């Protein structure tokens, strides 16, 4: 985390640019007029509450279903992504939340699944060499590529999933909740990996619910709320409170109150706990905007 290349971004053209993208399912507008830019060598965190439209956005980019309106510009060209194959051919790789690895196959088998070298006489040696090269490039800590994926830890599995997405030499990588269900050390491992992707000049979109992870690696944060853009922030000049406010749509809620109370920047407030007496002390200061009951 030594370099923050966010400064040099504004000049270069974005790798991915979405303008006025909308998508509805029946009567429900899942996405309305979304705008999103991602540059090469930039990590953009996509945050939002459940139902904010993050997954729909990812599905549009990964070709699961096309948008209803708006344009997607990738690498300077207007594109329409009809299928997962389209997305892969363009250079958009998606690492889904539930890793999608085959436990019974080895690391090499999983990395090259669906694009094995020499389909009628598999070139195992070359595949193994390339696997090592790729994993070394990511400084991945995998002891052997000839062991079944089942014997790897959560972080190592996530590493394999990310490494697999890199095999097609993509320009944009979408990580859907890469640290969910991972331990402290594995989370750090994956965040290091994201850092390395940026150093290698890739554009990264990372979806996460974990504000600490978002702050740790992202250059910018795009907030979605109820299917609309709710602000894009540069990581270095936004506080957790601002982010949570943007996500929840309220400047005054339990989380911010608790944060103000304790004076810490942590986002550990429990939504189930009602505000207690000190919160009422601050009530006059909070002014006229009344968000919480009582």
């Amino acid at each position, binding site marked *: 985390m030594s370099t923050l290349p966010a400064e040099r971004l504004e000049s270069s053209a974005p790798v991915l640019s979405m303008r006025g993208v909308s998508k509805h399912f029946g009567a429900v507008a899942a996405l309305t007029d979304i705008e999103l830019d991602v540059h090469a060598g930039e990590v953009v965190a996509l945050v939002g509450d459940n139902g904010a439209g993050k997954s729909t956005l990812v599905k549009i980019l990964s070709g699961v279903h096309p948008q209803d309106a708006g344009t997607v510009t990738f690498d300077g060209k207007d594109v329409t992504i009809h299928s*997962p*194959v389209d997305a*892969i051919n363009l250079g958009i790789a998606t690492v*889904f939340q*539930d*890793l*999608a*690895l*085959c*436990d*019974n*196959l080895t690391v090499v*088998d999983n990395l090259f*699944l*669906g*694009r*094995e070298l020499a*389909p*009628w*006489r*598999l070139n195992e*040696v*070359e595949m*193994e*060499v390339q696997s*090592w090269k790729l994993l070394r490039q990511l400084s991945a*800590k*995998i*002891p*052997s*590529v*000839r*062991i*079944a994926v*089942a*014997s*790897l830890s959560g972080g190592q599995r996530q590493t394999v999933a990310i490494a697999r997405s890199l095999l097609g030499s993509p320009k944009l990588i979408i990580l859907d909740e890469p640290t969910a269900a991972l331990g402290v050390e594995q989370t750090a491992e994956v965040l290091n990996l994201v850092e390395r992707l940026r150093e290698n000049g890739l554009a990264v979109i990372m979806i996460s619910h974990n504000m600490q992870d978002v702050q740790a690696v992202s250059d910018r944060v795009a907030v979605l709320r109820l299917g609309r853009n709710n602000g894009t922030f540069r990581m270095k000049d936004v506080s957790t409170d601002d982010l949570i406010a943007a996500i929840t749509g309220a400047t005054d809620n339990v989380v911010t109150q608790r944060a103000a109370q304790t004076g810490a920047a942590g986002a550990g407030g429990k939504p189930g706990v009602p505000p207690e007496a000190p919160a009422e002390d601050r009530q006059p200061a909070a002014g006229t905007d009344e968000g919480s009951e009582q």
Partner: protein
Amino acid sequence: MTVNPASTDVPVATDLQDERLIRTEGFRGAVKVGINRVRGGDLGVLPIVVGLLIIWTIFQLLNPFFLSSANLVNLLLESAAVGVISLGIVCVLLVGEIDLSVGSVSGLSAAIVGVTFVKQGWPIALAILAAIAVAAVIGLIYSFVYNKFGVPSFVITLAGLLGFLGLQLWVLGVEGTINLPFDAFLVWFGQQAFVPAWLSYVLAALGVAGFFLSQLSLSRQRVKAGLSGRPMGLVIGQTVILAVVLFFSFWYLNRARGVGWMFVFFAVLVLIMHYAFTRTRWGRSVYAVGGNREAARRAGIGVTGIYTSIFVLCSSFAAIGGILAAGRLAAAAQSSGTGDVNLNAIAAAVIGGTSLFGGRGSAFSALLGILVIQSITSGLTLLNLESSFRYMITGLVLLLAVILDAVSRKSRTSHGRA
């Protein structure tokens, strides 16, 4: 690696650089890996070989004729037909599905060959092709219903079991049995065709040489690419074991009539399927679909295509097995493919080590499994026991194999080899 002074001047192979990797080099290392594997529930062929030795010892003690050349020649001939059917079962089990109708399909194929060849006077090749084509269409129907409606293969093929048994009876007509003429190629192939002694040794030599050279060239390629090669001692050891087993078996069988061409045909099919499973993209996809269907789909594998190819292969192998059985019996009868054919084929695949849970197994399990089943059948026949005992004992062995499968699966999970 920290205490290895040699690491400074000798470059370590790319795949052995991680310091957490337990170093297992050379012949002794390979043996150690093998022991650890078995402990971890990755049993490989070990239980079958041990089981086969136990079965053979018991029957040999009960009846000294059991391990005679003449009986083993027969045993191999008898195992070819159901073995081929079992090869198809291995295919469906690898994708985590099942085909319960292989017996009926094999009987139907025998009936089709009987009717077209004997009654209609078609050339034998055409009759065989027609039977296999019908079976392939049956496989297509299964895969269509499976892919289109998502009905479990268990139920689809259960319907097939009944339906195609009916079709077999209808094709055979009122007589019920069609005898194949003894001068027909098929009957000769099933009963009289044996590999000449000299040719069997040539085949064994070719097999051993082929194994050794392929291992050697693979090892060379790996070293050239900066990976660890296979220890020379291990390669030579395996080659010697293979040579001893092959030459001794051929020599022993040649004391009687020798090795039947039908069994050689079965063995060649096994080798072809082994290559397809392990060295082609299709084979890799089969294991992927059996292991995690959704992952395979997201990796861009045409999952429905894999299922289609598997169901067609399974039905086709069932047909080939049925035709071989007809040749062996010199007849296509109402009883062809009924009785224990179905369960023997499935039991052989499972006993041979192919998991019922999908994604794990090998083509060789059909070969090894059918040897176990056929040994039991042959031994009990020699003891003049009725088929009632045979069924019970085969059932018991199948149960043991399935328990072993489930237990080793659990053990694999706890040892990180699932």
